[in-house]
């Protein structure tokens, strides 16, 4: 018998899974399936994958009527072949034509919308998790694993590979890591932040001054200054966004409003500097600024006024 290709095995598995999906098989079908499965060890594996997808995709029912659309997303977020080629061409143009094969990079853009988080598994087994409004591209080649983060926030869980450094570039900064978990945050004109959760993480400025980060510490890099180390961090707080939360620890309403603005088009506006300087602590849902404002108003004795553009917090009129 001619050996089936893995694609043929997979195609047949999908048809069997679709048939089984609709209820128990007829005895004849069951006998045919059993005989087919016994013919080649790969078939059981392919059938298991198809069954896994068939059973798991029923969970999509949980999303019915939910916030996640099933319609096609805007073409912008789809990686078009033309876009990929254009990106690769521009990288080659910058890199020069010498040793084309060695310099050839597949630059592949990524982008998240406001309020969106996304898990992006990378080719080498590393994983990048993007927070709201993040944009950049992945440039992997044989010599290095490079990520460019132009704006936003991303968590990297990096698989160790001594032969191929993992480098995150953002503005003038380069974070070099190996077998590590770390966060890079580039928000507007604020200094670049790097938080290490463990492993080898080194923050480099434009003049090559490297700063190694210990586990659970943070470092900053401002334009024209060497990297600065700061103290211990609270990992749960730093990563609350992965669960769609904002965790505030004795923060001013001004800072809280700025944080919520990253996830929501509706702004929280403290009416005056005194209100803006009040402090609040708690765990809040990132895409629900109204509930946050009501909670803050309740504990700080403020008034809340909500309209289409803003959520206004002011001192309670007596």
């Amino acid at each position, binding site marked *: 018998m001619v050996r*089936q290709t*893995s*694609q043929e095995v*997979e*195609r*047949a598995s*999908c*048809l069997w899974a*679709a*048939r089984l999906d*609709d209820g128990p098989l007829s005895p004849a*079908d069951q006998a045919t*399936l*059993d005989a*087919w*499965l*016994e013919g080649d*060890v*790969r*078939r*059981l*594996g*392919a059938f*298991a*994958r198809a*069954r896994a*997808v068939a*059973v*798991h*995709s*029923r*969970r*999509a*029912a949980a*999303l*019915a009527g939910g916030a*996640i659309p*099933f319609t*096609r*997303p805007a073409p912008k977020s789809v990686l078009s072949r033309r876009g990929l080629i254009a990106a690769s061409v521009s990288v080659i143009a910058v890199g020069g034509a010498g040793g084309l094969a060695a310099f050839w990079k*597949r630059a*592949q853009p*990524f982008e998240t919308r406001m309020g969106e988080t*996304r*898990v*992006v*598994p*990378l*080719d*080498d*087994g590393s994983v990048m998790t993007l927070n709201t409004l993040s944009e950049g591209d*992945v440039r*992997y080649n044989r010599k290095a694993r490079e990520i460019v983060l132009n704006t936003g926030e991303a*968590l990297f*869980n990096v*698989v*160790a*590979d001594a032969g191929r450094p993992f480098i995150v570039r953002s503005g003038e900064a380069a974070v070099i890591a190996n077998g590590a*978990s770390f966060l890079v945050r580039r928000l507007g004109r604020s200094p670049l932040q790097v938080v290490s959760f463990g492993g080898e993480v080194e923050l480099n400025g434009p003049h090559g001054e490297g700063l190694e980060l210990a586990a659970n510490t943070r470092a900053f890099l401002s334009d024209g200054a060497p990297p600065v180390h700061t103290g211990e961090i609270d990992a749960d707080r730093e990563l609350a966004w992965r*669960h769609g939360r904002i965790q505030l620890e004795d923060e001013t309403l001004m800072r809280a409003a700025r944080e919520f603005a990253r996830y929501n088009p509706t702004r929280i506006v403290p009416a005056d500097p005194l209100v803006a300087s009040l402090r609040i602590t708690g765990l809040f849902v990132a895409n629900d600024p109204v509930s946050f404002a009501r909670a803050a108003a309740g504990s700080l004795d403020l008034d809340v006024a909500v309209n289409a553009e803003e959520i206004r917090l002011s001192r309670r009129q007596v």
Partner: protein
Amino acid sequence: MGVSNERALWLATHVMPHEPAVRGWLRRGRQAEFDVDDIIQEAYAKLVTVADVSEIRNVRAYFFRTAYSVLVSRVRRKSVVSIRSLAEVESLQLAVDELTPEDTVMARNELQVLAEMISRLPEKTRKIFLLSRVSGLSQKEVSRRTGIAESTVEKHIAKGLGLLMAAYANGGFGAVVASKSEKQQRGKVHGQADKPGG
């Protein structure tokens, strides 16, 4: 022989999220002599036959080890093996030992990833798939509602499954580094090979 719903769900939620990583790792070993898809299928066959999966602490590492053992048995079965491929298999072993567990990271936006993948199915397949998955209609009911023959409905569901499997293999919709070796034929389920008789 078969695959219980329970085991299928375990595979989907605990194993498949790591599949892109295992594929990436197998490709990095540049095992040109072996088809990555073959190795993945055989690894799944082994994972189905594990008696009790609740004992597996680090599923990701277990998946890597299973794929590795499939690879090793294939290397042994070959009568002539290049020294290069032996060295590469050894370097893969080193990579397995360095693995860091990150099961939790992958599990996060599970449903969101699923929704995005479904949203990218071709129009007709997506419509049928949604009626079957989200509305929970039987294939007969889908056929009645859409006026599409039941056998065609079944084919579209199979096609949807194939495309989702390919998406899982590439790390879901969010994979920005696609595999060069992924065959264009993936997901097409209209082939004649051993398909169930109608």
